[in-house]
């Protein structure tokens, strides 16, 4: 990695981060991993490839809702940003098919905790 300069840091506008991009984030802190986030993350990567669904799948830290881990946050154009909780392998696949491909939200897994 090249050395950063002050300008590199100052020129960044945090408001523009990920503007207009579609992504899936999986909470991968200890709490999430303990609840099975590793498996969910691997499933998302594998199944997205298998099904030719192009979306940026990332890891992130703990969102705070530890009682409903693993947490998966999904942002797809035209739909609100959604936080899914208690995500299993099967739910992860449904998220890819139903939410990402068909732009329909899933019943019973959305958590709006503050």
């Amino acid at each position, binding site marked *: 990695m090249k050395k950063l300069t*002050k300008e590199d840091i100052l020129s960044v506008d*945090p408001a523009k981060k990920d503007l207009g991009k579609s992504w899936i984030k999986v909470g991968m802190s*200890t709490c999430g991993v303990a609840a099975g986030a590793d498996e969910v993350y691997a499933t998302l990567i594998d199944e997205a490839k298998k099904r030719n669904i192009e979306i940026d799948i990332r890891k*992130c830290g703990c969102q*705070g809702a530890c009682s409903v881990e693993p947490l998966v946050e999904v942002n797809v154009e035209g739909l609100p940003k959604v936080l899914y909780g208690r995500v299993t392998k099967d739910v992860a696949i449904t998220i890819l098919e139903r939410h990402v491909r068909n732009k329909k939200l899933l019943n019973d897994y959305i958590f709006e*905790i503050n």
Partner: protein
Amino acid sequence: MEKKIIYLRDTDSAQQERINDFFTLFSNELRDANLVDLVQLVKIADIGLYEKGVAVKILPENIVYSGIKNTDVKKIIEETVKNNKIIKELLYEKKSKQVRAVLKNCGYIDPESMEDYIAAGGYKALVKVLTEMKPENVVDELKKSGLRGRGGAGYPTWMKWNFARGMNSPEKYVICNGDEGDPGAYMDRSVLEGDPHSVLEGMIIAGYTIGSSKGFFYIRAEYPLAVERVQKAIDQAIAAGLLGNNILGSGFNFELEIRLGAGAFVCGEETALIASIEGKRGTPHPRPPYPSVKGLWEKPTIINNVETLANIPALIVGGGAKFASIGTEKSKGTKVFALTGKVKNSGLVEVPMGITLREIIFDIGGGILNNRAIKAIQTGGPSGGVIPQEFLDTPVDYENLGKLGSIMGSGGMIAIDETDCLVDLAKFYLKFCVDESCGKCAPCRLGGYQLLRILEKISEGNGELEDLNRLKKISYAMQKASLCGLGQSASNPVFSTIRYFEEEYKQHIVNKKCPAGKCKALVYFKILPQKCKKCGLCMKNCPSNAILGSREAGYVIDPQKCIKCGACFDVCKFKAVMKE
């Protein structure tokens, strides 16, 4: 009309079947109005409201209605969905009670990517400090902000930094205390795992301010993922030139290293922590001299908690005055709590100082599990105390919690309901402190053990009233005479439970009864013949074959064999098993 989404949720925990009727109602109305293709109806799992009836949220306008009836459905579709008109009498103005400052990047950025941290505005504070600010300006900003240590004691951060800055020494050190060990607390772990660069940035700024060129991350070895991510962050910062010599061309040098804690709770105490980094046995030593005068290798040292350091970048970018605009008179900013125990939504919450305990437990935590009654809240872990439910409306800050006999602590918050026994709770925390006492000073080593013996005696039904005075006397001696915070505060759970729940202790001592049914020696299970339907479920589930009888004759419990596990009590569908 543009596309819309309707979220649907029944917020009454007692009536989970009702939501399907509403789903059908909405579907039918949408079909009749020819809106099926335009409106998506979604049942969601949590809408952030509790015990407020059926709630809907209409997106993208973010309109929330609560307590809706069958008859409101048509109106909502006609007025709000079709014509964007708000129905005032149903509207719920939902305001988030949480303020995310320390946790703002947790769950937002990729913790293993420095680019992502910078894209979210990271390291701007470092640039600002290195180009525009002198060390004394940083201290001034901290003073204006009123930031106090988040590790528990609440010492003003600016004073700590200013002492160390004023010391004339060529070598000084910055230490990040990541030895989080309170049972049920994991705020620091989440910050280190979710946003390691913010803590790194805070440490570099601290180094610049006090004139230090070397810092240590002290992280407990039980947090392997945190250690891995912090190490990655350090490597990335070195590669990018944010650690090392001549950082960003300013002439300031700083390096960072991780040291692992080997699992002793007492190493979270600053003098023991220093001994541990030096490679000595982790035991505390008397203060003064304070670490800011004579710390690591006898050089001036500042030790800050993870959360304190994670507060620094945003504080510098936004300014001290902005930081101080949140909070109470003497406690500024936000605090992260690990909300656990008998609460519905356990997890991490970040709230402004001055919020009430009731808001945290009921509005954010969603109330108590199984809708039982709340009895008390425990804050501050084994060094803290309990706060009974009468004081739920107390605003949370360092002073208020102290007045109630508890402490802010590092941020553990445990909800206790009517099925928890306070004697048992005091015993649990005391046992933890007895196990973790380093043994160096007598008040902690002997006092803790004696307290535990007395509590065990009480919970076994052998207590006497004089024991209450003994508990108080020993507790007092430990508070006054112990060497470090561990011993001084180990008796806090005992003190505060006696203060508020003396009646419960007396029940154990005089009546030989445990009202919550937790203390096994004082609990008896009995099958009530008049209620028993002779189904035999209790017998099937008894792990110790203590239930005798048959489907014809009925069942009885053999007290000799009963291990008081409560399995029969839990499985009986007819409430025929009695616990007393």
